[in-house]
């Protein structure tokens, strides 16, 4: 009886989950990500991802956009910090540069943080390592990016 109840609860839970998922996917379709669907479709098709479902493509697009915005916001933080640091030195010019410009420095710092944080390393699964290249984890790849002088 207990087991039956548990199973019933489990199945109901799963049904709820399914309902939640389908709801989530429906809500995804309402949101138009900045990254166009065609672009995402092209690149994931190139990498072997086969899926006829448009919602999953949207999911990928949204996830990527989230990632990009996180990196960009980190870079923005760095940029602002640098500006405030500069202002500290020279008091003559109150606001040296109002314009916030994305530079390679800020970008590489933000990426470093994202992939070198201790919380990140644990999340690597061996599968990811196998797929992503000769050596390595994502962090190594990013190091290669930096080395090339971007």
């Amino acid at each position, binding site marked *: 009886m207990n087991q039956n109840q548990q199973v019933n609860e489990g199945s109901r839970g799963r049904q709820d989950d399914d309902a939640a998922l389908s709801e989530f996917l429906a809500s995804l379709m309402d949101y138009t990500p900045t990254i166009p669907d*065609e*672009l995402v479709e*092209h690149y994931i098709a190139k990498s072997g*991802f086969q899926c006829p479902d448009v919602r999953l493509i949207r999911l990928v697009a949204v996830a990527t956009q989230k990632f990009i915005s996180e990196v960009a916001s980190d870079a923005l933080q760095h940029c602002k910090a640098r500006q405030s640091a500069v202002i500290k030195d020279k008091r003559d010019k109150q606001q040296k540069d109002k*314009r916030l410009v994305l530079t390679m420095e800020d970008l590489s710092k933000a990426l470093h943080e994202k992939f070198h944080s201790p919380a990140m390393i644990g999340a690597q699964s061996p*599968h990811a390592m196998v797929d*992503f290249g000769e050596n390595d984890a994502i962090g190594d790849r990013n190091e290669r990016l930096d080395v090339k002088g971007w």
Partner: protein
Amino acid sequence: MSDGGRLSEGNCGDHDNFGRSIAQIAVAQVCESLGFDGSKQSALDSFSEILIRYVSDLGKVSKFYANLSGRTESNLFDIVEGLVDLGFLKGKVRGRNPRVSEVVKEIGWYVRSVEEVPFKQSVPSFPVPVKRSTVPSFENIQETPPGKHILSWLPAFPDPHTYVHTPVWNVRKTDPRTDKVEQARQRRKAERSLLSLQQRLSNWVPHGPQQNRLSSSRLLQNGEIDENMSENGIGSKEVNSENQVLVLEAFAPAIDAAKNGFFDSVDGERNDVFLNKRPAIHFKSNFGRKLLKEPLELSLQKKGVGEITPWYGRDDNNDKKRRAEQILKESMENHEELAQL
């Protein structure tokens, strides 16, 4: 794997320019929405490269998880696992089974928090497939393939004339002859029309001898009329005081010649005919000579002998020739006489 490697190479990115530029625009839009006023080009390039690589990696990992589960098509769970692998749940609790819900929560939160910034331009679906013209199959041509071992869906054989040297029959054997006949006919037509034109002009000439001369001189000066037929000169001169009868008489030999069509053989006869007419011409006009200084080309004679001699000179040449012949004969006779002697 090789895709990722290729993407990292800056050298062979030319074939992907369209996708890259779209990625650049998307990245720039995200940055702008976050508060950036501008960006360095190098930073933008690398950022778009990161975007492309992230999408490709996500696709790869989800494909991997789908294959691991024995499927070829990825589904939501594969993507979620891929996201987790790529560090989506950084800092959050990991290792729990319902990762899906976590991811869903994250994304749901993000979607709600960020305002919608759609891509600025409409993007066509790319890459556009290149249509290549294929060799038609036997079915397409609706030919039965020679031999049962050749299936109908295979490409058709080329036409035999492309690889077998078949004799080429020259169909046009009689054409040159007919062409020549046609040409002669057309020439005769032209000459007849010229004759009729002359007749009409002669009819039109006003009365009075001097006026006639003037008009005839004008006619002579008109190169068009003189061109093809020397008979024009004769005809116009004849018109001086006389009538169309003389014109017709003058043209009679020409008309006969035209009708016969044997220009070469008739040459001698025509010469005789013209010689017969000559004394009249000489008597009639002196001014004609001046005007006739240009050699008149006879179209009728052209096809034949092709020798062009001026009218007024011919007489002398022939006389000279005759005299020369006579002298020769005489000398021959003398020789013989001398020899005999």
